[in-house]
């Protein structure tokens, strides 16, 4: 009964980059995918998920081991495999200058779907994807979520024997993500579809029958989601923060205590943590008289335990940083940013409609929203990169609309893409950016010393910035943006494409910075990261839908303890029901 669709035995894949240098993408991987079920591969970036997908699709040749797909060898049978399966790469190659219908017809033609069966199949797909009203629209003009749905529709123009989905929901808003998963599940039920999906979202993997956990090309564990949860069984606890204390400060205290604690995150308005093995109590909590309740482990907890076991390296936390936490941590009363009736139009299109908010000194303020919601536009206006159409915009007491250059002196900016000079050393980058900010030589030297020690860069000062590992790159970007000690730090999607451990480290730094009085404005598509924020706002179609602290927003929606994905979906759905039709 259990028919095997994919079987990998001791599969190896190495890439040669430049002369002699080799990178191992997959090491001795054993994996099977059964017919008619959803199988997931989870793992941080660089785990080898995409490589495995491409090997299965016959787009790459394995370096060693055996891989059979639909009973065929993945190399000699590549052509037949490619005919019988469907594959949706991470960036599905839609033709942006073709319409929705033209894209679907192209794939139907290539797959040889007969003309007479097309109308019913297309109707079904389009209805499920919510695209039936947009058949004549160019694919390039669709929102991010819709593009992914169209990509999925193109792979499903006929019922494939096996469907490969490579991170189909990365960067897509929670609402579209949920819809996409419902569609895939429906096809699994109705057409007995076999699906292999890779994902970075744990709640998605939890929907699958079998999960493989990969890290740096190696299999850490595999099993049903429940079995993987049990890895952290009995070690997960949570507690609500005492009145007035930001969740992230307590979380920072716990995550610093690596002796007793594996992982700590703010979740559902509480601090959630996992104890190390054989540890029963946490000194910090005992000292502060905080009582934590045991909670059921989630897939993410199991995953974090596995990941911590595999990765021993973690950044030290200095005494100084801990002291800063003890002292500060609460945002001030002073208002740093004032936005009133901000509007930005591009021709007829209103990207940001009548938005007002204030941000206080030392506050972490998050901008959340699906792609095309207006968060990047708002963000750019705040940084002074894009002029506003109308409204009041004041940053650190300077009117951004009249004195942009002056306002910029108070601002540090970290762009989404690594935007430092890749072929210059770490030190040269720091010196260059210090020079740009106009720091006098002596001051510059002091500042460089300061940021180098704060961001743990001292061991790589002579390395070219481009060859740094991901986590270092990001710390270097932050260090450069903070050289001139700006009052406000802007971070555009700083955690996208970064593995969970590095993300924890990143937020740990942000917590320290905020405690020292730096105001932080951040955009993110990881909704759960809103939990680190003092306050955040949600935008959709250019309209501000909700603003407040995570606790306030939960209370307003009567969703105590709910996770951020659910809160986001509820807010967007409510707004759309009120008549705010999606574009």
């Amino acid at each position, binding site marked *: 009964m259990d028919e095997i669709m994919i079987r990998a035995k001791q599969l190896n894949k190495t890439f040669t980059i430049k002369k002699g240098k080799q990178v191992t993408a997959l090491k001795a991987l054993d994996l099977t995918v059964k017919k008619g079920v959803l199988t997931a591969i989870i793992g941080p970036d660089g785990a080898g998920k995409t490589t495995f997908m491409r090997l299965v699709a016959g787009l790459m040749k394995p370096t060693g081991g055996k891989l059979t797909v639909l009973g065929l060898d993945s190399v000699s049978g590549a*052509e037949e495999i490619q005919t019988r399966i469907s594959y949706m*790469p991470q960036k599905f190659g839609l033709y942006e200058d073709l319409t929705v219908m033209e894209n679907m017809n192209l794939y139907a033609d290539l797959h040889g779907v007969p003309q007479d069966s097309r109308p019913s199949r297309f109707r079904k797909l389009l209805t499920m994807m919510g695209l039936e009203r947009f058949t004549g629209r160019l694919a390039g003009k669709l929102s991010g979520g819709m593009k992914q749905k169209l990509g999925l529709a193109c792979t499903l123009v006929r019922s494939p024997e096996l469907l490969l989905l490579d991170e189909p929901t990365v960067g897509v808003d929670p609402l579209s993500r949920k819809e996409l998963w419902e569609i895939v599940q429906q096809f699994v039920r109705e057409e007995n579809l076999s699906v292999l999906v890779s994902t970075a979202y744990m709640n998605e993997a939890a929907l699958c029958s079998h999960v493989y956990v990969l890290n740096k090309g190696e299999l850490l564990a595999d099993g049903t989601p429940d079995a993987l949860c049990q890895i952290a069984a009995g070690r997960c606890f949570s507690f609500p923060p005492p009145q007035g204390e930001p969740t992230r400060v307590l979380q920072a205290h716990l995550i610093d205590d690596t002796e007793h604690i594996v992982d700590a995150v703010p979740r559902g308005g509480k601090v959630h943590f996992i104890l190390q093995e054989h540890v029963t109590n946490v000194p910090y909590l005992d000292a502060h008289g905080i009582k934590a309740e045991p909670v059921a482990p989630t897939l993410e907890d199991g995953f974090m335990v596995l990941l911590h076991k595999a990765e021993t390296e973690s950044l030290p936390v200095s005494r100084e940083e801990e002291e800063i936490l003890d002292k500060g941590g609460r945002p001030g009363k002073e208002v740093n940013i004032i936005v009133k009736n901000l509007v930005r139009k591009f021709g007829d299109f209103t990207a940001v409609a009548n938005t007002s908010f204030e941000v206080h000194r030392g506050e972490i303020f998050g901008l959340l929203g699906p792609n095309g919601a207006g968060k990047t536009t708002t963000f750019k206006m705040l940084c002074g990169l894009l002029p506003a159409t109308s409204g009041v915009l004041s940053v650190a007491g300077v009117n951004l609309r009249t004195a942009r250059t002056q306002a910029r002196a108070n601002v540090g900016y970290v762009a989404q893409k690594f935007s430092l000079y890749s072929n210059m050393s770490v030190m040269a980058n720091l010196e260059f950016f210090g020079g740009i900010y106009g720091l006098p030589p002596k001051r510059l030297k002091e500042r460089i010393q300061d940021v180098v020690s704060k961001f743990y860069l001292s061991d790589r000062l002579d390395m070219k910035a481009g060859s740094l590992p991901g986590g270092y790159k990001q710390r270097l970007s932050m260090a450069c943006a903070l050289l001139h000690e700006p009052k406000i730090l802007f971070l555009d999607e700083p955690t996208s494409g970064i593995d969970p451990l590095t993300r924890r480290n990143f937020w740990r730094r942000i917590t320290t910075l905020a405690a020292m009085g730096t105001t932080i404005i951040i955009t993110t598509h990881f909704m759960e990261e809103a939990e680190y924020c003092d306050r955040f706002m949600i935008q959709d179609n250019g309209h501000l839908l909700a603003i407040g602290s995570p606790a306030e927003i939960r209370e307003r929606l009567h969703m105590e303890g709910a996770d951020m994905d659910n809160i986001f979906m509820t807010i967007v759905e409510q707004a759309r029901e009120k008549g705010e039709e999606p574009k």
Partner: protein
Amino acid sequence: MNGFIRRMKALITKEFLQLSRDSSSLLLGMVLPIALILIIGYGISLDIKNIPTVVVLEDTSPKAQDVVSFLNGSAYFSPTYMTSLKDAEKVFLNRDASVIIDIPSDFTSKLSQGEAKIFVALDGVETATAMTTKGYIESSISSWLLRQPGMAGKSRIAIHSRMWYNDANSSTWFFLPGLIMLIVTIVGIMLTAIVMAREWERGTFESLFVTPVRPMELVLAKIVPYFCVAMVGVFICLILSRFLFEVPLVGSLAMVIIISMLYLMVALGIGLVISAITKNQFLACQTSILISFLPCFVLSGFIFDLRSTPIGVQIVGAVLPFSHYLTCIRSLFLSGTNWGILLKQGGLLCLYAIFFVGAAFGMTRKKVE
């Protein structure tokens, strides 16, 4: 076979739809030829100024001096007067003069008989300048003749001009066939390299690969539409050169088209090979310019006669396909249908086409490594 036709139809339809939506490729394919032909066609007939001119007055009579008086005070010429043709030739050979106007010793006596002659030698290396200079000299001399009392209509001066260094008595006509080559090359190589590299860059190929489509079909589906676009470009060139620049077409139009199609296949093949290697639009664009535009200009005989270049340059020029097409199309335009040349060069072009298109087929694999 059925599947092949169905897939080809789908891919080619897609290509034409994209062409109709994305005006940049169409601009490259059709507006670029027009722009180039106008810029180069007109730009090459540069205005002349201060041409170093040697006048040899073997006849020193006032009449003989008067006939070349237009040179004095003219912005176009800076004349030097001599009496010996030998001396003048020395100056000319040193490239210190570009024109010799020789008035023979019997000029005045023959003038009244209506048999006067003037010899003009021009520097054929600077073809365009030489032609313009010649035109000025001829018209100035005939208008002088008209001003002579009692001579209008009766008398004439025969102007014997000769191009030095270049026997092929060239003109702007000479450039237009070359221009067609330039345009076919640029459109063929650059356009295909860019559109193919775009598919790699945008990841559209990765999705297409996991369908029953065969690599050969992907390549063919690129060749067909861009072949059409580039042929439209060729026709635009032909029409413009015929009606705007009035270049005569001595040879057969059919052969011009057939040879152009053959050469276009070479260009498309090169473009596809470039994109298969670079897989990146920017790199593909840069590479195409580097290996097509520049060699086309200087190593094909388009501007400089390859025969007058050092042997090394000649070899490079002969290895590149550009000069072979240029030879064909030039001879077709200016001297007629020469089957010897056409068969030899056309055969070579065939080999080039098979090589590059074959390489493109071989290099386009359904792999992303």
